[in-house]
């Protein structure tokens, strides 16, 4: 049978295969499916080939708690065996065996990672099991995953060794290095997650037991402790009692709301009210400096046009800094004309034009 024929057979019998997958076993299976070992006869029933179920579960990220992660000891031993054989004669046959085993191991790591991720997801969203069983399963998974660390270390060391033996090995291992490293590091993350999950679940178990115990006490009216606690701590507890017949209001009444409204208004006094009318912007008015009598200077300028106000002020005997201050003040007058040039003091030439 070719692969294509197998795919066609699966498609043609999809309903029956699906029933077998969901129900676990069937009383009847098509002969062609049995011949192709898609179904295997067990007693008077037919069950799907275990390899098929493993394949489907892997593709669909479905795993069972009973899953056993390979420790890769067998593959690792094979890898070492063929590596040594290659080293003794450098035969291509052994070289190819090593390369194939590297690929196989990488793929197993990849699928193992998918399985672990799916298993942890299943654990996290578990609805069927009681917390005791969930904790037990989480501990089992933790144990299984922790055992992988040694296998990871051994395989990593062999991969490193392979890189130093041959350029082809180096190329192959380097190509997988990054992905391999990620898969190895994920194991530590999974272990960390599981440890956290176990602690949290134990805490939840404690909380759930408390709720169930107190609820049980309520049902059987053994709740003196609860009643005492509630009544003696009522000042610190949430009051939400309402009843159409007994209108018990221990939260704000109408007058409270009025008081709060008033208090909120008091907070408002710090708010800056927006101006109602638009502010009319007017140009700044020239201000007089105290350091000189600006009127005297304006009188001097009124007598004649000036090509450079700053030089003019220096010529009039003002010190440099003082001249500059007066210069700045004069800039706001209407008679001022700005040029694009600078004088020898690197100050823009500004003219006075009467």
């Amino acid at each position, binding site marked *: 049978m070719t692969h294509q024929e197998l795919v066609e057979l699966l498609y043609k019998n999809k309903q029956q295969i699906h029933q077998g997958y969901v129900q676990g076993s069937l009383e009847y299976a098509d002969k062609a499916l049995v011949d192709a070992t898609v179904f295997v006869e067990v007693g008077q029933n037919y069950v799907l080939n275990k390899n098929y179920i493993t394949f489907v579960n892997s593709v669909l990220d479905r795993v069972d708690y009973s899953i056993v992660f390979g420790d890769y000891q067998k593959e690792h031993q094979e890898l070492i065996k063929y590596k040594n054989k290659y080293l003794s004669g450098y035969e291509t046959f052994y070289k190819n065996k090593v390369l194939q085993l590297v690929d196989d191991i990488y793929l197993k790591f990849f699928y193992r990672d998918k399985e672990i991720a799916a298993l942890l997801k299943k654990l996290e969203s578990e609805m069927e099991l009681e917390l005791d069983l969930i904790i037990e399963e989480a501990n089992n998974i933790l144990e299984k995953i922790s055992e992988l660390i040694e296998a990871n270390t051994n395989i990593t060391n062999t991969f490193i060794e392979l890189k130093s033996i041959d350029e082809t090995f180096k190329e192959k291992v380097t190509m997988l290095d990054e992905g391999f490293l990620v898969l190895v590091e994920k194991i530590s993350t999974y272990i960390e997650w599981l440890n956290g999950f176990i602690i949290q679940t134990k805490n*939840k178990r404690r909380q759930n037991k408390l*709720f169930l115990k107190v609820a049980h006490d309520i049902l059987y009216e053994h709740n003196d402790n609860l009643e005492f606690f509630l009544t003696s701590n009522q*000042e*610190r507890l949430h*009051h939400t*009692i309402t009843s159409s017949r007994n209108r018990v209001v221990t*939260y704000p009444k109408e007058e409270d709301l009025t008081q709060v409204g008033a208090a909120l208004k008091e907070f408002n006094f710090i708010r800056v009210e927006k101006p109602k009318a638009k502010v009319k912007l007017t140009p700044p008015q020239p201000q007089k400096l105290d350091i000189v009598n600006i009127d005297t200077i304006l009188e001097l300028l009124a007598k004649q046009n000036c090509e450079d106000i700053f030089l003019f002020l220096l010529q009039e005997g003002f010190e440099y800094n003082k001249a500059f201050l007066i210069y700045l003040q004069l800039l706001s007058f209407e008679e001022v004309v700005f040029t694009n040039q600078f004088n020898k003091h690197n100050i823009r030439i500004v003219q006075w034009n009467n």
Partner: protein
Amino acid sequence: MEQLKEAFEILSKGVILSQNSKKYSEVVNFLAIDENFEKLSSLVSQLGFELIGENGYFYFVKESTMTPTEVQLFVESHKKVIVAIAILKQIIPLLSPNDTIKITDFTAELTKRVDESLEQKLYFLFGELDTKTKIEEFFKLLEKRAILERVNAKDKDSFRVMQSINYYLKIVESVG
């Protein structure tokens, strides 16, 4: 100022505001800022209220002496919610704040797990009602007590677990 008022009005209605509430997210984010919390706290303390903020939720308490009838209602109200949460925990043991619960999943699980202790609890809460109505009333009760919140208005099936569930955890830890 508007948010202060809004926070006050919501808390005044007896709502326990959870930090993971989407419905009240603006108010909750507002109260999560120390300055705002202090402001509201100081404002309501003048009226004899206390704003409590703990374990991811906020609520008001008021200094007042309850009448015997009020005490009885106050205690019964807490008992009902504790029994309802016990049912939730029995059906969904891994339940945590932020989890989403679907009524359909809950119903399926309840049908599978139903035993004498679950029946007793449901009877305590809702008496002789049929299972469907009991489940409806169960979700109504927890929604009203702000333990569950609808994921969105259109989705009638999904609820999110609020952090206010920790308020009842605090009580059972104190007496359990």
